[in-house]
């Protein structure tokens, strides 16, 4: 391998692409070459580096200096000063919490992160299988195929305590065991990358930043349950994810890491990409299956569950992107290693996406069980302008809203539900005191009305009615009894809707009614908004 004294990582995640990172990358390559540094300095485009609102972001190693909001016009200076003369361009390091040079992997900036899922994101060139392999890529698969029986693989995943990271938190090993036990001529592994939960973009950035980890994880799952075919169902909007996955599949096939008789083990596995077409409900596993089968993405009645009767009626494992990304490291390092992270009930890490009124928006990975307060104030850098925290919605739009009294609740799949919320996909939407609760509630409810598939009564009619009633309250047309009706309707939707969409749609409104009821009442009874911001 060639040796370079410096590596310049250019974040190639979508948010940075939007801000022009491609131009910066090209300018860096050209400038490095022009200065005759191309044998010493390597410019690498990577997956997401995390601070999505500071793009384009680049990191220069070995120093680990993070530059933000880099423009093409800054490139000559960076090359001249940093790469040639070894001086940090301080004007581009931003106002980090600690003055001076910001080092990317140091906890001072991105806090108490533990990177399992994002181990390669922002470190390797996602379009290079060689770099993935150099970071132990496909070693877990090799270990499974050559040293372990399928049952051992399932046992290891069970022992790790990994639960599904898409939101439902079903134990992954157990799920696999159902499909492994099913007797069928054909089984499937589906990777659910139909990430539609508002505020969530972790799967996008994992796919963009480390697509091979998904292919490897799926192949391991296939080996464990006896499936030789996998599909990745990606949102149609995720253009870059689809492109990178496509390249990764080609590369893996070329090296024999996908295809027939992998590592001479007799095990074969192929992966195809399927593009979604704009339907949140396809994130529900049976809606996703229907969509792959070329139908309206309407969830199926369960049972039967996909584990025994899924895609084309065959036993099918459906796992979320983040769940699958956890698989190779678990198999490589063992379940006990994995259990060192997170909590006893909920081992491992969780990838969160920070959005809303928070200084550092972006992608983070932290141990399961971290408190909201630490995420907001230690990692997220607090609320802009030092404004007051009002609430955080955890788990995306289908999650609950937590008031400041609950800032110290540990965030995991079991504790949050005790407070009426959910960890869900890991989206964290922070809202400061300037926001009107009714206005936000209307926004949430509008989303569900738009995304209900329309199949079952409580969800089709209920989401429309929740929105209608909240919209009336927001317009100052609320009437006594509205809140009780919202509560009752919400409860009925939660227990009688056909799928998770209708069951979760009332969660935000129910928690808002629980923690901010007085604000709704002010809109109804006094026709005024306590925050004075909603225009009632």
């Amino acid at each position, binding site marked *: 391998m060639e040796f370079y004294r410096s590596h310049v990582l250019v974040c190639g995640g*979508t948010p940075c692409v939007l801000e022009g990172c491609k131009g910066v990358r090209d300018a860096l390559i050209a400038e490095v070459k022009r200065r005759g540094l191309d044998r010493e300095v390597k410019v690498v485009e990577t997956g997401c580096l995390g601070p999505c609102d500071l793009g384009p972001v680049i990191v220069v190693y070995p120093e680990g200096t993070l530059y933000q909001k880099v423009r093409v016009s800054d490139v000559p200076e960076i090359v001249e000063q940093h790469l040639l003369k070894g001086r940090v361009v301080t004007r581009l390091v931003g106002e980090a919490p600690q003055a001076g040079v910001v080092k990317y992997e140091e906890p001072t900036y991105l806090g108490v992160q533990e990177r399992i899922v994002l181990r390669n994101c922002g470190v390797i060139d996602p379009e290079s299988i060689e770099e993935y392999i150099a970071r132990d890529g496909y070693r877990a698969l090799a270990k499974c195929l050559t040293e372990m029986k399928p049952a051992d693989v399932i046992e290891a995943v069970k022992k790790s305590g990994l639960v599904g990271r898409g939101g439902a938190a079903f134990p992954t090993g157990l799920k696999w065991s159902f499909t492994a036990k099913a007797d069928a001529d054909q089984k499937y592994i589906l990777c659910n990358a139909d990430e539609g939960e508002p*505020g969530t973009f972790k799967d996008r950035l994992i796919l963009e930043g480390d697509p091979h980890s998904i292919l490897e994880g799926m192949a391991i799952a296939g080996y464990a349950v006896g499936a030789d075919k996998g599909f990745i169902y990606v949102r*149609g909007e995720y253009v870059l994810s689809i492109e990178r996955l496509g390249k990764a599949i080609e590369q893996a096939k070329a090296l024999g890491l996908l295809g027939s008789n992998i590592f001479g083990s007799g095990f074969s596995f192929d992966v195809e990409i399927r593009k979604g*077409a704009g339907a949140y409900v396809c994130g529900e596993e049976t809606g996703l299956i229907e969509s792959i089968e070329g139908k309206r993405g*309407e969830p199926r009645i369960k049972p039967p569950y996909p584990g025994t009767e899924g895609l084309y009626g065959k036993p099918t494992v459906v796992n979320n992107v983040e769940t699958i990304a956890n698989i190779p490291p678990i198999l490589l390092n063992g379940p006990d290693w994995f259990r060192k992270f997170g909590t006893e009930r909920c081992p491992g890490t969780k990838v969160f996406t920070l*959005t809303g009124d928070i200084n550092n928006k972006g992608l983070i990975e932290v141990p399961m069980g971290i408190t909201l307060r630490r995420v907001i104030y230690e990692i997220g850098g607090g609320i802009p302008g030092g404004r007051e925290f009002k609430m955080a919605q955890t788990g995306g739009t289908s999650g609950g809203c937590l008031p400041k009294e609950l800032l110290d609740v540990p965030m995991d799949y079991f504790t949050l539900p005790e407070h009426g919320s959910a960890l869900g996909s890991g989206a964290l939407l922070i809202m400061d005191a300037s926001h009107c609760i009714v206005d936000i509630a209307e926004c949430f409810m509008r989303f569900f009305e738009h*995304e209900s598939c329309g199949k079952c009564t409580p969800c089709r009619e209920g989401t429309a009615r929740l929105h209608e009633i909240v919209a009336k309250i927001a317009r100052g047309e609320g009437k006594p009894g509205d809140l009780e009706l919202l509560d009752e309707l919400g409860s009925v939707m939660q227990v009688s809707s056909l799928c998770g969409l209708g069951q979760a749609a009332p969660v935000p409104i129910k928690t808002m009614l629980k923690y901010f009821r007085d604000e709704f009442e002010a809109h109804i009874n006094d026709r005024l908004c306590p925050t004075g911001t909603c225009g009632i």
Partner: protein
Amino acid sequence: METAAKSASICPAKVSEILAKYSRRPDALVSILHDVQKEAGYLSEEAITEIASGLDIPVSKVYGVATFYTLFSTKPKGQYVIRVCENAPCHVLGAKAIVEALEKELGIPMGGTTSDGKFTLEYTSCLGVCGVAPAIMINEAVYGNLTPERVPLILKEYK
């Protein structure tokens, strides 16, 4: 910039070519609709009928699928479709003002198409770029960290 959507309809021969690419498998319907729409800009009644005929499935089913997904359109749209996210993370950071700026700048309401057929304005669900909210997507290009002031500048690139 990516290729602009064409507003013309699609010829049966082209549909047939796309169907052949998927071996006329009915389970490839969503992919087929993607490809046909990419070619034609929207899914015309003729294209939907051709697909049904080529896959030998009821045309009502093809129409049912085409109208289920928001990325598909059965009506012609502008050359540039501007999808505006108004989900919570964008809403919290001022998507409403972006909507107003777009409506004002283009002189059409949300859901409308400019009279010259150039722009269509519509809502979308979360684009998954909430780190740079508020965001919009113009055909396949995403724009984030928007302010009402940036709207005219972005539109200028397309005018």
